């Protein structure tokens, strides 16, 4: 009998718990006095960053989502327009020989731990980032500075060669000199007109002395000088930032506490947003993208803006077949971009007309791709004929862990139908493997490539990707003319002149077609009813400083 009596209390308590869960759960939380404070923070969709939270060693968007509001560099990019403007720098002055910049810092700025931000914090941080021994991911961001080659010597026979790069002969770049607490000089290897724009990139922020004293502690509890400071973190779950009250800059935030919550499924985040259980999302699940359902469901809360990036189909010019420019042009002519934008992306993308993102500050693309980016069946066939036809199967590669399958299938279909050749797809399981194959020149056919601007000048789309020695040149493209145009642009007298020359260089790509520009898809996201304002920046990272809590009772 003893056992039987247990059943009733167990059943009773279970149903009580069920009832409590049913009544007490409550879907969306409304706006109250506490909204936006630590008690009830504004929540943002997030994912576990791939790297430690150190600006010189972090590269992914999830890392940026935290580091962006935590650090302020000399120059910052406007989250809405992506335009650069001075932040910590009072002035950046160029010397007569166009090689040395004198940077004056604003005074009275403090790190979150109370340390004053001085010129030394910048110089030490940049030297740390560049030094090969520290093996930082963003090391090559500093490569324009004089003395970089001494702290980070190049591999004498390239990455693939058996020789290892020599040991660095110095720990500090000779081009960086502290003048006084609030002044330092940057000497570059050679004139580089858009350098003051480039230093708005995340890797160029200052680091506090606390970082150099105890790096292990800093990794667990990062300290910055930006509008938000680190509060707490549970790895793989969440990270909370709070507003830094003594922030001196003019991009201070208005929300007191923001919590980044790790979501493994875009679908779940989307449901949470719809019921105000999550305040900002920066991905829209595929199911809601169909027929633009998300825009109907979210109405005014939907965010859609141009991305400062571009998706291209890179061509492996290290393979004999693709050395023929007529074949490359034929492929480009055979892709009906407008149709793909309309059918696959429901119009939430822009068909590419060149290699630079449309609406790009400092020089949007002026149609550098020219006629090659227009769908033209007859001309495509003509160029294929000129190239001597195409034997065998053309295989397009993409990484299967991103949302690429749909559109690349459409691209493959377009090429097949237009040129009448066999087209296949090759899905590489992970981006890591994919990147490895690109690095090692192992691609056998065209492969998809996405690029997001690091800084707001057209150079970011050209120099790393298409110059002979470019750090991300995966096509094997090498053109003396193009290299010279880029070098000339780098040394231009003014930024405007430089941007003009970069655009000219892009037109040179239009003659050679080393890759096929496809489209730029929109930055898509949404905010909840609890926010009156809030947007994503043009790299899809939620811009926390733009958040404003809605009025209570709304």
């Amino acid at each position, binding site marked *: *009998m003893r*056992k*039987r009596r247990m059943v009733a209390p*167990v059943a009773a308590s*279970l149903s009580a*718990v*069920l009832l409590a*869960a*049913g009544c*007490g*759960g*409550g*879907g969306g939380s409304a706006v109250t006095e506490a909204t936006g404070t630590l008690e009830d923070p504004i929540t943002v969709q997030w994912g*576990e*960053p*791939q*790297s*430690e*939270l150190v600006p010189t*060693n972090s*590269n*992914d968007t999830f890392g940026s989502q935290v580091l962006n509001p935590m650090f302020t560099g000399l120059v910052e990019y406007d989250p809405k327009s992506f335009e650069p403007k001075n932040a910590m720098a009072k002035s950046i002055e160029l010397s007569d020989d166009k090689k040395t910049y004198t940077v004056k810092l604003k005074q009275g700025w403090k790190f979150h731990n109370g340390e004053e931000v001085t010129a030394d914090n910048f110089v030490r941080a940049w030297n740390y980032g560049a030094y090969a021994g520290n*093996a*930082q*991911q963003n*090391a*090559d961001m500093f490569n324009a500075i004089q003395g970089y080659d001494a702290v*980070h010597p190049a591999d004498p026979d390239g*990455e693939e060669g058996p020789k290892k*790069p020599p040991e660095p002969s110095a720990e500090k770049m000779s081009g960086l000199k502290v003048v006084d607490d609030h002044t330092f000089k940057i000497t570059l290897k050679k004139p580089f007109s858009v350098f003051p724009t480039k230093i708005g990139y995340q890797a160029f922020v200052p680091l506090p002395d606390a970082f150099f004293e105890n790096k292990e502690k800093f990794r667990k509890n990062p300290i910055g000088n930006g509008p938000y400071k680190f509060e707490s973190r*549970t*790895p*793989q*779950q*969440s990270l909370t930032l709070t507003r830094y009250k003594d922030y001196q800059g003019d991009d201070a935030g208005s929300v007191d506490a923001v919590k980044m*919550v*790790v979501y*493994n*499924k875009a*679908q*779940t*985040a989307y*449901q*949470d947003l719809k*019921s105000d*259980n999550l305040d900002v999302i920066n991905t829209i699940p595929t199911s809601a993208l169909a027929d633009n359902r998300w825009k109907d469901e979210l109405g005014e809360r939907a965010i859609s803006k141009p991305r400062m990036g571009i998706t291209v189909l890179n061509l492996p010019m290290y393979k004999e077949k693709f050395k023929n420019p007529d074949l490359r042009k034929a492929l480009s002519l055979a892709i009906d971009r407008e149709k793909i934008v309309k059918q696959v992306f429901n119009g939430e993308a822009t068909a590419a007309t060149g290699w630079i993102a449309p609406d790009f500050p400092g020089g949007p693309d002026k149609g550098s791709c020219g006629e090659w980016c227009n769908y033209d069946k007859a001309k495509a066939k003509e160029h294929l004929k000129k190239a001597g036809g195409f034997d065998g199967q053309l295989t397009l590669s993409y990484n299967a862990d991103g949302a690429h399958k749909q559109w690349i299938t459409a691209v493959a279909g377009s090429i097949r139908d237009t040129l009448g050749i066999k087209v296949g797809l090759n899905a590489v399981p*992970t981006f*890591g*493997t*994919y*990147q*490895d*194959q*690109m690095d090692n020149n192992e691609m056998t056919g065209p492969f998809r*490539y996405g*690029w*997001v601007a*690091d800084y707001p000048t057209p150079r970011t789309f050209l120099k*790393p990707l298409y110059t002979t020695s470019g750090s*991300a040149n995966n096509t094997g493209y090498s053109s003396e003319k193009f290299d010279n145009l880029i070098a000339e642009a780098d040394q231009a007298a003014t930024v405007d002149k430089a941007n003009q020359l970069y655009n000219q260089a892009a037109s040179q790509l239009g003659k050679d077609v080393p890759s096929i520009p496809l489209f730029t898809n929109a930055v898509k996201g949404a905010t909840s009813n609890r926010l009156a304002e809030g947007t994503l920046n043009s790299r899809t990272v939620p811009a926390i400083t733009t958040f404003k809590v809605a009025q209570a009772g709304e």
Partner: protein
Amino acid sequence: MGRYILRRLLQLIPVFIGTTFIIYSLVWAIPGNPFAGMCGPRGCPPAFIEQMTQEYNLDKPLPVQYVLYLGQLFSGNFGQTFNGIEVSTLIQNAYPVTLKLATIALVFEAVIGIAAGILTALRGKGFVDNLVLAATLFLIAVPVFVSGFVIQVVFGVQLEWIQPSVGSDPTIGQLIAPGLVLGSLSMAYIARLTRTAMFENKRADYIRTATAKGLKPRRVVSVHMLRNSLIPVITFIGTDFGALMGGAIVTEGVFNIHGIGGLVFDAIKTQEGVTVTGVVTLLVVVYLLMNLLVDILYAALDPRIRYD
């Protein structure tokens, strides 16, 4: 009994070494450099890749790597992820959540499943029996991600009875709905298993004897019939609990629960070999111990079973 348990525990050692070696070599054998994708489309500087390769001993031959890893593991160090977080911290954060979720699912499936099984077996053919059979068939047929999304959308988004997802550090109340979803499939199996076993035993000789002795029907059912019928059910519950403790990737994903399943899944995706090996090793040990526990429970339920 003591010797039996000891023998079983000793068997754990070769199984432990074997599984960890297989997992370790498989994870790191995935083609492609795990660090190559870390810097996005720009690619990583060679100095970065080289240092990471050295840090994770990937420049050494596989057996050496494995021995180094095992040595580290035995000194209580699970290692660090690529972004510098202790794997032990990750496990500490994720395991309590998985344990809670697994327990809720287990209580749910055992209580409702066994109750439904007993009810249908005692009532015999009729409306209740048909209802339970149809309901369990339905639960077996519907995949977990479907029932998960339906519950989330209906109760979370439309009716707003529950939160559509579970935050970090969830309470028992928040985990009830995901627990129901997670346990629903096994609940159906348990109901059917109990029903069949009860039906079989209903006509057994010892039951007729017990009834003929004049025992109250309640006692016949709860002590004589149920105890014997529960043996296969216990086996099922035991192995199911072992599986639940390994995390539930789908349910965790739908309700955004940060449990052990999602941790392993994410780690596999990003080729975080250290995390995968560490967590899976732990799971193997838990699973083996659960199996041992089930075997011991047999002996307690059925005095005829002796292990020595």
